[in-house]
């Protein structure tokens, strides 16, 4: 147990990135950016295009991982939106990311009916999607990610980790890319 009251070191990601994660970018990229996000959270919505920017900027030097952290007590659509993204992911990695993008681009329409429309729009196997969605097939996975995030110090959404260390700075593009650049430079 700790002794003195701590203003402790930065929180660390306690659940390592594995092949089970949804990821973009190479496995051996020198920098891994993990986001714990909520599809209904407006701040995550604001961060969404900024992540695209840093992905473009860093190319193969950056691996991006998205994990679910739906704040269901304040966001009524967040859980089902996460389940829809994971149900899409059940049909393929590309399908996951297409759904992920679509949800962030349509944050004002995340009701069940809209989610099913998005699945159709993306050309997913409709029966499989409906069945996975209706049976909450990915509920446990989402809950595990939520608890893993809490144990890693996720303190709201979005929370980012750069190579396993919580990033507490602003997630506007230049501070985030500066932080990534710093980690990248030190990894070389």
């Amino acid at each position: 147990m700790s002794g003195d009251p701590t203003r402790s070191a930065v929180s660390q990601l306690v659940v390592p990135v594995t092949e089970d994660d949804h990821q973009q970018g190479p496995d051996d990229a020198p920098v891994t950016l993990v986001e714990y996000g909520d599809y209904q959270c407006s701040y995550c919505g604001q961060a969404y295009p900024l992540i695209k920017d840093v992905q473009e900027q860093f190319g193969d030097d950056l691996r991006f991982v998205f994990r679910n952290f739906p704040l269901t007590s304040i966001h009524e659509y967040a859980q089902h939106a996460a389940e829809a993204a994971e149900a899409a992911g059940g049909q393929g990695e590309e399908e996951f990311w297409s759904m992920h993008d679509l949800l962030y681009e349509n944050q004002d329409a995340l009701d069940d009916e809209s989610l099913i429309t998005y699945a159709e729009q993306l050309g997913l196997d409709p029966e499989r999607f409906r069945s996975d969605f209706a049976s909450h097939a990915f509920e446990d996975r989402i809950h595990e990610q939520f608890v893993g995030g809490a144990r890693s110090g996720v303190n709201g959404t979005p929370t980012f980790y750069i190579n396993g260390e919580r990033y507490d700075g602003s997630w506007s593009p230049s501070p985030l890319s500066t932080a990534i650049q710093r980690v990248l430079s030190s990894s070389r």
Partner: protein
Amino acid sequence: MSTDHYTLSSGEIHREPLSAGTRAPEFTLPTTPDQTVSLSDFHGQPVVLAFYPADWSPTCGDQLSLYNQLLPEFQAHGAQLLGVSVDGVWCHRAFEEDRNIHFPLLADFEPKGAIAKAYGVYRDDVGTSERALFVIDAGGIIQWSYVSPVGINPGADGILRELEALSTTVELEEGR
């Protein structure tokens, strides 16, 4: 402060946050217009005491909503979560209803901040408590305390880590 007393002597003030190993000062505070909660109500189980500056934090996914959603994880360790701020009971009630909060919010309202002062986490300059966490074991001893930098939501990793450690200790003792 004697190590065995369990009531808060009036006006006890600590300037520094109480640290691990200290007996947690007893308190009785209103949680609704007609109910009070005392620390000793939870003797025999761990208590997580979360001081926060004010109800109605404007941030998305603020600290209390996060803890609210983590209640099953805290309960898995047999722990009781209590939130404390200098807001009054009516303010707490409106806030609880708005955010669907399912754990007690205590009003450290009159005399203002007395419990925050007893735990060494009152900010005289702004008249609120710090954003401070205490994990108190089943015997009433503080096992961990943490003061978050102003403006940074501390999350729950420290709390969960301490509760896991406490559960492990209990299991080891029971296993003997």
